[in-house]
């Protein structure tokens, strides 16, 4: 075994700098918190717990801007996942997590363990995970490495979720060169819970046991938390060795064992938490901190996969598929019996103690004895400099870009073949979207919808992020992201309830990046307030950059909604011929950051128009009321490619065409003004619908036929649905097959 440095050597040689702990932090810990020099193990614990990944020390001041309360909110940020009341004694539980860095290094395992981690967060609350969604942003597909990354990432998400038997019901996949070296892989898990079974990450009660359950500990991903708080440098590939390997079979057993415990024997349990980033140290210290307790652990008792692990390695290992429990004294054997049935380790590794210290023993020696709060609460917040990005000022000085559509039919077809717009079925069909037979709407529509067994209700869920808009204007882009998510939920006939987020940004030490973070959170927070969708959980992923080039600021909004009556569920696709077609929401000249701009110009520039959130919320609610009254046949939100793409996509499902006539120009046909829907309404409800939506809905024409007949102010086309559908379906398979 390598000889560990003495406290004095640590002070002298400063190894903590490589673990992302600054000299200022080290000195503060020594002088103000411990009043002595920390030893090797302690220094390691501090560096992990004080990393951005565990402490949010950089982003915390910004995260405080989020609204987190509401009448339905049972648990906001700070626990494994957010919990939202949906009536009948039930709650929906959800959270999203980023796994960008591990995915860039080893895409299959990076994505798989991303899914595994977020599932544990949800079942640590006592909820059964019922669905997974993803949000993927990759480089362009003309690059062989990107195609490999994408294939492996998708295989990893499917490999884990399919084996667990949790359907993947939705998500998004977009492409832009900015993500080439640093793809974004976010996963969201949604669970259902009987409110009475809700658990927390809590450890208290002197003498109660700390139990370790699940897989054994190996040297996996030591320093994964600090790894996630570093940026990439293509010259230092070898440092990227922190990826863990997932075992979904083990996690399936762990899930069933934990749910048996929380649903049938909650009275034996004080608290439960996933061992995620920074493994045992984060879960145990956070649980003790939450319970305002002391804790003593004997590391010799931790089930270990490899011989000769140091205390530091045991505490910081990020081996997957493990949970930490606080069990009432006297019930240790009862708990062990449950895990025995599933052939899982369940071992008492320590106890709750009087006082407030965090004590670790290893090979008979005390290797750590520090206040619990020094790991969890005393973290120094890091002030950040911020500065408005120069490109915003430059863009504002330039005249806005006005697209010119020379050949509408040609532009329409090209638009449908854009990888961000084209059908994602070749990927989504590798996900089991139907297992556990509750999926009412699977991948490919505005939101995934699951029925809630034993009721006639459903939950709708979506993930949305569009870095291009946030890049152009973080605050307006932030608002747009929430509006887009709400549009997706409402398009299914569901009432938006709350959001989770993954905040994916570049290096926050760059003032422009921090400005992006701050202002986009302001925009998200504002929209969440107006749309009445509080933030209940989330995650921050910083340092997303390769060779000093940051990704677009890419916050992902994961929203969940409630379908009160599944009879009034609304689908994307036109259902019948001869229904009236309406465009809900005003169309403006919103081309900055649009798919059209990317396609025609090849780059993203311009300033965004602000949104009237109150107005959008008002007509969203009137539209939802019409849906809940059963007056709407189909609804599809307008996003990339605007009305043009939504019209085409709505026609593909049942191959029902449409005949529309509009004063919009052919450029406006592709405009991406947020807060808009394409809605088909059976003629018997049309008059009432038009009255209720008033100025906010424009009648476009009717569904029917087998082509799209589109007469605009300046041009007209008549294109067969089958031809457009073929273009849309074949684009991605063709790009993925291409050879360099």
């Amino acid at each position, binding site marked *: 075994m390598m000889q560990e440095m003495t406290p004095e050597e640590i002070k002298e040689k400063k190894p903590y700098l490589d673990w992302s702990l600054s000299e200022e932090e080290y000195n503060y810990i020594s002088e103000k918190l411990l009043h002595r020099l920390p030893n090797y193990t302690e220094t390691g614990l501090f560096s992990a717990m004080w990393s951005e990944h565990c402490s949010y020390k950089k982003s915390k001041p910004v995260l405080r801007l989020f609204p987190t309360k509401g009448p339905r909110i049972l648990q906001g940020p700070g626990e494994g996942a957010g919990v939202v009341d949906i009536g009948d004694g039930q709650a929906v539980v959800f959270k999203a997590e980023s796994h960008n860095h591990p995915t860039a290094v080893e895409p299959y395992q990076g994505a798989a363990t991303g899914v595994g981690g977020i599932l544990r967060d949800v079942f640590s609350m006592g909820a059964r995970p019922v669905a997974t969604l993803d949000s993927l942003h990759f480089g362009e597909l003309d690059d062989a490495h990107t195609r490999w990354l994408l294939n492996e990432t998708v295989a990893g998400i499917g490999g884990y979720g399919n084996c667990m*038997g949790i359907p993947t019901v939705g998500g998004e996949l977009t492409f832009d060169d900015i993500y080439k070296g640093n793809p974004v892989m976010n996963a969201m898990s949604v669970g259902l819970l009987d409110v009475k079974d809700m658990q927390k990450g809590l450890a208290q009660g002197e003498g109660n046991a700390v139990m370790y359950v699940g897989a054994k500990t190996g040297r996996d991903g030591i320093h994964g938390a600090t790894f996630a708080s570093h940026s990439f440098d293509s010259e230092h590939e070898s440092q990227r060795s922190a990826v863990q390997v997932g075992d979904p*079979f083990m996690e399936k057993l762990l899930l069933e064992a934990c749910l048996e415990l929380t649903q049938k024997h909650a009275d034996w349990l004080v608290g439960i938490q996933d061992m995620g980033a920074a493994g045992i140290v984060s879960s145990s210290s956070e649980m003790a901190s939450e319970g305002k307790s002391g804790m003593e652990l004997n590391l010799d008792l931790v089930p270990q996969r490899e011989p000769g692990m140091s205390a530091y390695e045991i505490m910081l290992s990020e081996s997957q598929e493990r949970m930490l429990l606080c069990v009432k004294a006297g019930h240790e054997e009862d708990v062990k019996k449950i895990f025995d049935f599933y052939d899982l380790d369940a071992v008492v590794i320590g106890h709750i103690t009087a006082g407030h210290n965090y004590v670790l023993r290893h090979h008979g020696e005390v290797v750590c004895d520090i206040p619990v709060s020094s790991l969890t609460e005393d973290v120094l917040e890091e002030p950040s400099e911020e500065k408005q990005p120069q490109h915003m000022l430059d863009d504002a000085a330039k005249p806005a870009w006005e697209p010119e559509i020379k050949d509408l039919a040609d532009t329409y077809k090209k638009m449908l073949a854009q990888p961000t717009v084209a059908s994602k079925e070749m990927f989504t069909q590798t996900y089991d979207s139907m297992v556990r037979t509750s999926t009412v709407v699977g991948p490919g529509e505005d939101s995934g919808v699951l029925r809630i067994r034993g009721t006639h209700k459903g939950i709708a869920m979506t993930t949305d992020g569009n870095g291009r808009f946030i890049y152009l204007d973080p605050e307006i882009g932030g608002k747009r992201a929430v509006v887009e998510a709400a549009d997706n939920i409402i398009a299914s006939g569901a009432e938006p309830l709350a959001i989770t987020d993954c905040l994916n940004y570049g290096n926050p030490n760059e003032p422009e990046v921090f400005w992006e973070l701050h202002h986009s959170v302001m925009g998200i927070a504002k929209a969440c307030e107006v749309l009445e969708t509080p933030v209940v959980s989330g995650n921050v992923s910083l340092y997303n950059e390769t060779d000093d080039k940051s990704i677009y600021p890419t916050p992902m909004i994961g929203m969940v909604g409630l379908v009160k009556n599944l009879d009034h569920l609304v689908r994307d696709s036109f259902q019948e011929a001869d229904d009236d077609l309406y465009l809900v929401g005003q169309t403006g000249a919103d081309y900055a950051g649009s798919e059209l701009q990317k396609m025609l110009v090849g780059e993203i520039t311009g300033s965004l128009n602000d949104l009237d959130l109150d107005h959008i919320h008002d007509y969203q609610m009137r539209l939802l009321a019409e849906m809940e009254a059963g007056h709407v046949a189909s609804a599809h939100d307008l996003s990339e490619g605007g009305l043009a793409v939504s019209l085409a996509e709505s026609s593909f499902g049942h191959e029902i065409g449409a005949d529309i006539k509009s004063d919009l120009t052919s450029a406006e046909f592709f405009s991406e003004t947020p807060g808009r829907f394409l809605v088909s309404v059976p003629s018997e409800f049309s008059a009432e619908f038009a009255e209720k939506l008033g100025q906010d809905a424009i009648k476009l024409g009717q569904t029917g036929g087998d082509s799209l007949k589109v007469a605009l102010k300046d041009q007209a086309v008549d294109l067969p649905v089958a031809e457009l559908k073929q273009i849309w379906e074949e684009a991605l398979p063709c790009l993925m097959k291409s050879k360099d």
Partner: protein
Amino acid sequence: MKFAVIQFPGSNCDIDLYEALHTVCGADVAYVPSKESSLDGFDAVMLPGGFSYGDYLRAGAIARFTNIMPAIVDMANAGKPVFGTCNGFQILTEAGLLPGALKRNDSLKFVCKTVELEVENNNTIFTSEYQKGEKINLPIAHADGSFYADPETLKQIEDNGQVVFRYSKENPNGSLNNIAGITNERGNVLGMMPHPERAVEALLGNTDGLRLFKSILDHAEVKA
């Protein structure tokens, strides 16, 4: 008639079979963990889809050594209905209750979609409610669903009328002779890669699988 739904470690479509039988068909059904060794009191046994033992080694290879397997073999030998879908089918072939084997899909990818099947044989206790030659749509969701048997075995299966379902539009996995589901020689053990239990409710968009469960229940009534 009482159904057992076996829960192997890693089974994950157990609830789908259970709910299809219990909630949709109103049948008498109970879960039986594979650690149990008896199926006393049960008249039919259902092996669910999923990833028993993580599909490690080969799909279904480890599950066949569980405690419950001898009781399942006894049920099969006694002529009682034994049904396996997806991973259940893989387990039945690994256990030798059905001929052939299931290989990795030709695409090398997991595939989840709805495919068209032809009912090749409606003269079984599982398919009597269907018409011979009828086309139905059922979901598939697997990575190892390519049916293989050596030429001699394949000929026997075909000649005996053991092929019950065949992929009729596209072959999604490379199965020989487009085989989607087969019985044993006696006809009381059915294994199939498609998931009839995922197609029993209009709310979820498909009811083509319902008659498979009705057929088993009908058979029980006729016998009783």
